[in-house]
């Protein structure tokens, strides 16, 4: 059995976002409990990525509210959300490509430590042990001195996930964490994500196309279609939902 989730920590109410005449999100409601692993699925154009981008501040919603741990988040820029412990990984892994893996993780620690404006190189030197420990945890310690440009797609995804974790997020938003990866790599990454998330009690929202990964990971699933929440439920409920099968599983 999966661990019991706590009280609702993220409440999204009537969230709407329009691009010209296209309604990408239409009054989306969402309630996620503390420590829950929530998958968001749906056919292309369902509004999943728009939802992620609004939740992480990349996009400003036209209306509606986002409350996380008692704080209103809607409309705040990404860097303010990061400081409020909302962590985010992008669909296309987003790292510092001319830096080494070590420097990438160092940059994440540097950001998380506050005092990023300090002029004391010693502060960075003192982070070495913690940075290496984090790289060890995500299985990249042996690549520490490699420049990101030179490592594989999967390792970059791993690195980005590790960098997000270094910020000690309380809410984690992952947009297709396993996109473009091979089957084995994919399961290894999702296992890593789940292990870290459960250990730290992080609330996780993720968009994913791979149904195997979704059913393997999620406590609860939200199905979106045409910018609306179409169905919600535990994995076995979603699997048994005939309408969901029609609009999503069947049409794959």
């Amino acid at each position, binding site marked *: 059995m999966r661990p019991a989730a706590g009280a609702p920590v993220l409440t999204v109410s009537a969230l709407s976002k329009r691009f010209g005449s296209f309604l990408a999100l239409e009054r989306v409601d969402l309630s996620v409990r503390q420590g829950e692993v929530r998958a968001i699925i749906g056919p292309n154009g369902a509004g999943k990525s728009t939802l992620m981008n609004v939740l*992480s501040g*990349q996009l400003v919603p036209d209306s509606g509210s986002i409350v996380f741990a008692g704080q209103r988040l809607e409309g705040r*820029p*990404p*860097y303010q959300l*990061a*400081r409020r412990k909302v*962590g*985010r990984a*992008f669909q296309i892994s*987003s*790292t*510092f*490509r*001319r*830096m080494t893996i070590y*420097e990438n993780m*160092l*940059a*994440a620690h*540097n*950001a*998380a*430590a506050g*005092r*990023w*404006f*300090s*002029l*004391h*190189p010693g*502060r*960075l*030197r003192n982070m*070495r*042990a913690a940075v*290496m*420990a984090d*790289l*060890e945890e995500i299985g990249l*310690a042996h690549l*520490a*001195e490699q420049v990101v440009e030179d490592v594989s797609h999967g390792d970059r995804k791993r690195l*980005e996930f590790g*960098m*997000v974790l270094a*910020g000690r997020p309380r809410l984690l938003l992952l947009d297709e964490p396993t996109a473009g990866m091979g089957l084995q790599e994919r399961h290894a990454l999702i296992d890593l994500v789940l292990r870290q998330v459960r250990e730290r009690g992080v609330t996780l929202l993720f968009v994913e196309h791979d149904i195997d990964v979704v059913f393997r990971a999620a406590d609860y699933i939200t199905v979106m279609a045409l910018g609306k929440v179409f169905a919600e439920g535990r994995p076995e409920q979603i699997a048994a939902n005939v309408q969901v099968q029609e609009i999503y599983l069947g049409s794959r």
Partner: protein
Amino acid sequence: MNRDAPAAPPVAPPARDDPYRIRWLPVAAVGLVAASALLAGPPLIVFALTEVMIFALFATALNLLLSYSGMVSFGHAVYFGIAAYGVALSITRLGWPMWAGILAGPFVSAFFALVFGAFCVQLTAIYAAMLTLACSEVTFAVVFQWFELTRGESGISGHVPAMLGLAPGVYGLVVLAVTGASILALWRVVHSPLGLTIRAVGQNAARAAALGHSRRTVQLIAFVISGFFAGVAGTLFSVFHGNVFPDYLGTLITVNGLVMVLLGGLYNFSAGIYGAVLFKILDNLLAHYFQYWQLVIGLILMAVILVSPRGIGGAIQSLARRLPGGHR
């Protein structure tokens, strides 16, 4: 692996060379060579070297933007020249003592960098670069045409004795000390937590924001630091000649600074130094032999960018790596 065993502390890979440490040996060597050339060299060398050092600082300050912060300034001469006007006007118009006027120079630049930078960081990429150009054009026009204040094209002179009245070699030593300290200060900025933040924002603003950094704030800080040190260079230059003209904040100085950085090689801290030295050598040699020497510099720049996109600095680095005992 036995999961119950206490986890061994992760072994850090051997630090191939601590990037945050200044390698004092080459720094001291360059300093010594420069100092002895200044003291013992013929006047021609002394003047050339003094100018090279000043432009090495200007280019290094510009390089903080180009290589690290993700910004391009197409009007950086403003922060070079406005310092010189700051010195001249605070002495002639405000009646400040000479030393106070000279010290004020770089702060005038930092102030302008703060004001213009605050506009420029509202935009990104080519739009921000165009705005830096616009800011510089406006400033140039004001300085050029506000005759009552700046005496326009005639410039201002006589407010400080050229080279402070020192012997050229001695003023050269002053320039060596100030540019040396300034470049080391910039090195420290780049390799500090602030520098890592600037590099992070410069390489990937979206990722940096997702880690909690505001692009605008960080880029503005970089812009002000760069403007300040460009102002140090401009102050030294204006005291060197004992005057100031609108050309000090004109396009030619901006372009020369950009060419120096590109010659030296992007993403290399020392690009400004390599570039300034090479530029001066080319400048002197080519002007001697060719009527259209600027055309030749342009061709050389194209060749460098095509053959070694990381410039002279990149070539030197990869050469050092191949030598026995070279790191990496």
